[in-house]
């Protein structure tokens, strides 16, 4: 191990000497300058282009972020000195955008009930409840609707011209009510073609005023007339409305009320009925509680986590062993057709694993699968927990060994042959030389890859999701299956057919992250020991 420079007793703080890169006048590479100008120009152009829509939508926070980041970029790159941020900024930005932000979002989401039925704020839920409670009056006629604007231009006050299809009488509907319009010209479809003092809007003009059309309801004795599209209107009334005093929704027709429950994000009636539209609330540790209090997970957690480790470890070490063995065999220059074999062996790695997993799944079919036909057996591979476990590990072996083969081939070729030769000269057997010289040197470069492979396989959703889907499921537990990994079980829990539960999923991924992080830290500590060999 090389000696580390020790810190001097009196640290000599050198003032950093800023090196001028040159800015235009002397000693500047004109191409570099041009690139700089174009680059910064692009940044500015993009920033200006983005600023418009952000301002128009009133997204002030984002606008602030945009201005700040643009100014930062300019401040760092416009100045002529070679300062460290010039090299660090891109990396830091990517770190922030692709690592820190998603992690923060995951952590914050883990404490909410964000998911189907609880996606938006409470206001959205109220709007949705009210607007989907419009009941058509039982004997409402279907008016033929013509959207018009008062005055000579299409941007005048919006009115509905309502034609009774039976009598062809036209009425003008405004927010104040109905007034007859005897001098309206009515076309064959019942649409008003002309009315003095009003401008009839075509669908394009009407669509430009969509908000006005949606918001206009013409009061009548029994409710209000609303538009359904731009050619039809009907009479109906909103039966449910929100009252802020009681923080509740009341149904006018039945008198039933649903009170907001800020804990669950639902409007709940006194009998426990809830309205389907909910909103997003903070649930504190609720998601974690649910995970750890889940009776199925409680019963199967130990088994599942053991299997999860067995699966990941078996796949990592199995594929490593197979890959290394083949790599060793093919590392001998005496082998003929070396390249041909290598291509052949890498083949499974080159195929899309999605397709291969599905092909393997079909090969394990009891009645129609290749495996049973070749072996002459009649095993229900995916119907028995042990066989299914064997099957998924086999499939992963096949998919994974080429990678290990590639990695170890590379590592083997970088081990100087004089080391093994020296061992041979010293009288070491081949096996001893391999065990004491080659393998430790190999592990130095491959151990981090093994740890990465472990964390990948610990969360290898595809390996399960595309083959057994977690099955077989014992009759007494239809939710936790024989080959379920934590990730595949919780994926179904959070995103199964029961709808997406992002808050819960985020909580689960935090827990899995902790497990994998712990294992990786331990693993890296162990590899640090290997480094000593060098």
């Amino acid at each position, binding site marked *: 191990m090389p000696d580390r420079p020790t810190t001097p007793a009196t640290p000599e703080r050198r003032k950093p000497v800023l090196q001028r890169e040159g800015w235009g006048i002397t000693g500047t*590479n004109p191409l570099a300058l041009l*690139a700089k100008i174009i*680059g*910064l120009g692009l940044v500015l152009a*993009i*920033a200006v282009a*983005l600023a418009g*829509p*952000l301002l*128009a939508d009133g*997204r002030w926070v*984002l606008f602030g*972020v*945009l201005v700040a*980041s643009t100014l930062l*970029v300019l401040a760092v790159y416009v100045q002529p000195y070679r300062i460290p941020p010039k*090299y660090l900024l*891109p990396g830091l*930005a990517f770190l922030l955008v692709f690592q820190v*932000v998603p992690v923060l979002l995951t952590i914050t989401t883990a404490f909410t009930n964000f998911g*189907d*039925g609880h*996606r*938006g704020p409470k206001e959205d839920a109220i709007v949705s409840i009210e*607007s989907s409670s*419009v009941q058509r009056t039982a004997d409402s006629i*279907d008016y033929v609707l013509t959207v018009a604007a008062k005055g000579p231009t299409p941007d005048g006050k919006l009115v509905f011209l309502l034609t009774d299809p039976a009598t062809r009488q036209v009425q003008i509907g405004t927010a104040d009510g109905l007034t007859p319009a005897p001098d309206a010209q009515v076309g064959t479809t019942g649409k008003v073609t002309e009315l003095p003092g009003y401008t009839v809007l*075509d*669908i*394009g003009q*009407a*669509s*430009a005023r*969509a908000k006005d059309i*949606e918001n206009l309801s013409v009061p009548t004795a029994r409710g209000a007339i609303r*538009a*359904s*599209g*731009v050619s*039809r209107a*009907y009479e109906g009334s909103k039966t449910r409305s929100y009252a802020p005093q009681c923080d509740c929704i009341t149904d006018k027709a039945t008198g039933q009320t649903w009170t907001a429950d800020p804990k669950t994000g639902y409007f709940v009636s006194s009998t426990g009925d809830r309205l*389907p*539209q909910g909103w997003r609330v903070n649930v504190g540790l609720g998601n974690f509680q649910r995970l750890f209090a889940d009776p*199925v997970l409680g019963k199967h957690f130990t088994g599942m986590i053991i299997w999860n480790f067995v699966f990941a470890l078996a796949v990592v070490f199995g594929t490593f062993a197979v890959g290394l063995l083949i790599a060793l065999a093919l590392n001998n220059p005496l082998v003929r057709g070396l390249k041909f074999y290598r291509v052949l062996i890498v083949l499974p790695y080159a195929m899309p694993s999605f397709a291969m997993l599905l092909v393997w799944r079909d090969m394990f079919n*009891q*009645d129609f699968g290749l495996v049973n036909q070749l072996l002459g057996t009649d095993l*229900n591979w995916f*119907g028995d927990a042990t066989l299914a476990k064997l099957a998924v590990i086999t499939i992963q072996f096949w998919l994974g060994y080429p990678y290990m083969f590639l990695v170890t081939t590379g590592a083997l070729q970088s081990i100087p042959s004089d080391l093994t030769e020296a061992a041979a000269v010293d009288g070491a057997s081949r096996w001893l030389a391999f065990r004491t010289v080659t393998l430790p040197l190999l592990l130095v470069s491959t151990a981090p890859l093994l740890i990465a492979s472990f964390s990948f396989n610990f969360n290898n959703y595809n390996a399960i999701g595309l083959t057994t*889907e977690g099955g077989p*499921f014992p*009759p*007494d537990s*239809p*939710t936790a*299956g024989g080959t379920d990994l934590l990730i595949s079980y919780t994926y179904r829990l959070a995103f*199964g*057919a*029961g*709808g*997406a539960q992002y808050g819960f999923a985020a909580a689960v991924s935090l827990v899995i992250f902790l497990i994998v992080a712990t294992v990786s830290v331990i693993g890296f500590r162990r590899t640090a020991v290997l480094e000593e060999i060098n």
Partner: protein
Amino acid sequence: MKKIHVLVGLAVGSMVLSACGTGGGGNTAASPTTAASTAAVPSGGKLLIWADEKKAEAVKPVAEQFGKENGVTIEVQAVTKDLQSQFVTASQAGNAPDVLIGAHDWIGNLAQNGAIDPVQLSNTSAFDPSTIKAVTYNGQVYGTPYSRENLVLFRNTALAPNAPTSVEDMVSNGKSLKSSGKTTEIMAQQVGQNGDVYHMQPLLTAGGGGIFATDAQGQADPKKVIIDSPESIAAMTKIQKLGEKGDGALKRSIDDKNAISTFTSGKTAYLVSGPWAIADIKKAGIKYDISAIPTFQGGKPAQPFIGVNAFYVASKGKNKVVANEFVSNYASTDAVQTAMFNGEPRPPAQTAVLTKVSATDPDIQKILDAGKDGAPMPSIPEMGKVFDPVGKAQANIVGGADVASTLKSAADAVRQAIG
């Protein structure tokens, strides 16, 4: 240094882009798209329609006709995967299309997320009542239906000339065909290792079982789970007798991937499937006929789930007025309904269109007849929590597991998930 400068320029540019793209969470991804669409709005506005591939292809010409007549720019986007969840996510992010075309059993979830609005149809009487019932949720009509589909029994008329009178009749005929070496399977109904609630429903109801009891309005009641009721246990016991430890008519090795091909390759005389199988069967040149799925001797009528396809108005669409015009007024016209039929031949939702297309396609009326006892698949969001545990329980029962305790575990899992 030169290279570094260029790289830095590029990196900085993309950094600013990505910083703005992801800076503040979900809603921000919308901004570039919003900018593009507001900039491109011509006088008539734009109508964006989302559907799966086949439906998008079918709706395109008629939608463009609507666009031409009304001066609206039409854009039809085919969303090939997870249309429902993509739509909900897009709605929440402010990128929702204006119109969605999809299955009626999505309605509960779409409504609870405030993603679709109720529509006011003028000509409900033109539709088959079952299709209107299917698109009704909490007393509101949420879409304009255009087709319905249900499971039927296909039989290979070269092997089985007559429609079976009962499940027992079908199984005994299938068995004798198998023992004479003409086929290798008694029947093909997809079960798979994890079960298939949709395909099991006819036999479950034939035996008297069910999933949810219905409330006063005929809507499935999520508080009344009857998965482990005595009737359901009796029904699944009958189904178990057809299973791997019994007749061997139902088996887990037959799944969604191989059920239809087992029939089209002549390995079995009977197939439980829907209208989507017809194209494959015709291509294989199998002589077939369609009949209702039979019931057990002395059983109740087999009630396949009825699935309805419909047009919906997105709550968060940018051009809701035109979307409403398209969905509630234009989509119910004969032209659109016929176009959708031509895209995917299924029994049309409108009786007049049905009469018209039945003249050229005899299968359509047979599919409809086969589904006459059917009930719309519940569209309540809780239905989504049923498929997984109940399917697995049914697969286990087909494999020979104890009926009562298996159903009890599944029912408990469903009750717990509903909460």
